[in-house]
C-alpha cells in the first residue's frame, strides 16, 4: 500500500534521514520505533508532503506521491495525526472535526464520520461546542484522531498519540487504535513506548540516527536481546 524506497531527507544542510526503505501492506498494523531524534517524525512528515525527500521515492497505492502537496496526499486517504496534535485552538471541537472533512470527498460523508468518531470517543460529543484549546490533553488527542477519521483515511499514521497522557489514558488510546485496526484500517504507529507498540502492532521498524537499524515481526523483536536492552531497559 505504502512503499518508501531509499529516501534521504535534509534539514538545510543537515541530513536527518539516510536511505530509509519501508513498506506497509493493506490492513497491516506497523510500528516505527526509536529514541528521541531518531527521525521518526521527520519520516512521517516526509510521507505526507510537509517535508520533501532529496532522494528516493514514495509510492502510495502504486502512485508516486513524493512531489505532491499535502492536501492532495490527504485526498488519497493517507492521513497523519501529527505530533503535538496541531488542532485549531480557537475553533470549537465540532468545527475542528469539520475541517478534517474539508475536501470534497469527505464532505459528503460528514454525518456518518461524525457518528463514527463519537462512537469511538463518546466524550467528544459532549464537548462539541467547546473551544478546542480549552479541552484536556487527552480530549485534544482524541480530537486530533477524530479529525483524521473525518478525512476518510485508508492508511492512518499516528505520531506519538500517547505523549503527555496519563498511563491510564494512554492505554485507552492504544486500545482504541487496536479497535480501528480490527475494523480494517491500515495503521502506522510511531511512539517511544516500545513495549506497548510491539505488543499491539504486527511488524515494526526501529530507527537509529535516521537509519533503519532493525525490522521484523513484533514477536521476533520482542524476543531480541538488543531491543530489550536498548529500548525497554530489561
Amino acid at each position, binding site marked *: 500500500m505504502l512503499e518508501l524506497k531509499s529516501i534521504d531527507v535534509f534539514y538545510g544542510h543537515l541530513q536527518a534521514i539516510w536511505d530509509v526503505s519501508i513498506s506497509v501492506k493493506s490492513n497491516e498494523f506497523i510500528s516505527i520505533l526509536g529514541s528521541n531524534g531518531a527521525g521518526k517524525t521527520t519520516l512521517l512528515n516526509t510521507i505526507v*508532503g*510537509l517535508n520533501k525527500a532529496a532522494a528516493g521515492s514514495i509510492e502510495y497505492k502504486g502512485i508516486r506521491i513524493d512531489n505532491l502537496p499535502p*492536501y492532495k496526499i490527504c485526498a488519497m486517504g493517507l492521513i497523519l495525526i501529527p505530533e503535538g*496534535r*496541531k488542532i*485549531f*485552538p480557537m*475553533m470549537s471541537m465540532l468545527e475542528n472535526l469539520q*475541517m*478534517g472533512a474539508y475536501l470534497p470527498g469527505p464532505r459528503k460523508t460528514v454525518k456518518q464520520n461524525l457518528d463514527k468518531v463519537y462512537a469511538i470517543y463518546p466524550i467528544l460529543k459532549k464537548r462539541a461546542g467547546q473551544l478546542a484549546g480549552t479541552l484536556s490533553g487527552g480530549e485534544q488527542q482524541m480530537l486530533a484522531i477524530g479529525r483524521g477519521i473525518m478525512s476518510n483515511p485508508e492508511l492512518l499514521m499516528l505520531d506519538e498519540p500517547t505523549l503527555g497522557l496519563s498511563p491510564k489514558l494512554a492505554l485507552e488510546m492504544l486500545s482504541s487504535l487496536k479497535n480501528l485496526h480490527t475494523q480494517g484500517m491500515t495503521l502506522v504507529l510511531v511512539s517511544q513506548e516500545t513495549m506497548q507498540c510491539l505488543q499491539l502492532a504486527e511488524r515494526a521498524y526501529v530507527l537509529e540516527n535516521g537509519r533503519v537499524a532493525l525490522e521484523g515481526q513484533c514477536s521476533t523483536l520482542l524476543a531480541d536481546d538488543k531491543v530489550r536492552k536498548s529500548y525497554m531497559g530489561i
Partner: protein
Amino acid sequence: MLSGYEIAHGLIGGIFVGLVYALLSAGFSLTWGVTRVINLAHAAFALIGSYITLTLLELAGVDPLISILFIVPVLFILGLGMHYFMIKPTAKRTKDITSASMVLSFGLYMIVENLLVVIFKSDDRVLHSRYSDLSFHIGPISVAMTSVTSLAIAVVSLGVIYFFLNRTYTGKAVRAVWQDMDGAMLSGINVESVTAITYGLSLASAGVAGLCLVLMYSVTPYIAFSWLIYIFLIAIMGGLGSIVGVTVGGLIVGLIVSLGSVFIPFAYINLVLFVLLIVVLIVKPTGLFRR
C-alpha cells in the same frame, strides 16, 4: 457647559465612524493574522475604492451603491495579484515575512499613492451624490444621509465577512490556516488557495471601506496615511483574529475620536489615542479581545 445634545451627537458620530473604520481594518487584521504579513498598502487600496466610486459617479453617473459591484471584483483581483506576484515569491525567500512585507508593502503604498496623484491630481475631492443633501433624524439630532448609507454598507459588509469566516467551509479554513498552518495542511486544506482568497477578501473589503469613507469625507491621494494609523490602532486593540474584536476596536476608536472632540480640542485627540495604544500594548499586548 456641555449639553446632552452634544454628547449624543458625539456618541452617534462615534458609532458611525467607528464601524466604517472597523470595516477598513478587518482585512488588514485578516492578512496579518493568516499570513503574518503587515500590509502597509492596505489603506492605499481602500483609497483606490474611493477613487473608483468618484470616477464612476462623475464619468458615468453610477450610484455609489452600484459601484460596490465594480469595486469588489476589481479589488479582489488586485488582492490575488498581490498574493501571487508579491507575497508568495517573497515568502519563499525569507524566514521573516513580517518585516519583509512591511518594506515591500510600503513600496507598494508609495506606488499606489503616486499613481493616484498622476491620474487624479492631488486636489481635495468631494463626492456629490444624490444622498449628499439629504439627512436623517434621530430625535433632535440630524445625521447626513451619506453617513447613514456608509454605516449600512459597513455593517452589512462586516456581517458578510463574519458569516463567511464562521459559517462557510472556506471561511473556517481561513481561520484554521491562521491558527495552525501544519494542522490545516494535514486536514486537506489547500493553504495556497485559501491564502489567495484571504488577500482577495482583504482588499475587496478595503475597497468597500474606501467607498464608505468617500461618502463621508473628502479625499486626496495622501489621506491613506492617516487611515493607516487608525487601522493599526484598531487591529492592535481588537487583537488579530476576530471580526468581533475589530468591530469593538473600531467602535472604541470612533467613540474616542468623536466624543473626545466634544471635550477636548481636536488637535489632542490623536495624542489620547496613541497614549491609549501604548497602554494597551503594555498591559495586554495580544489585544483586548484575544486570549
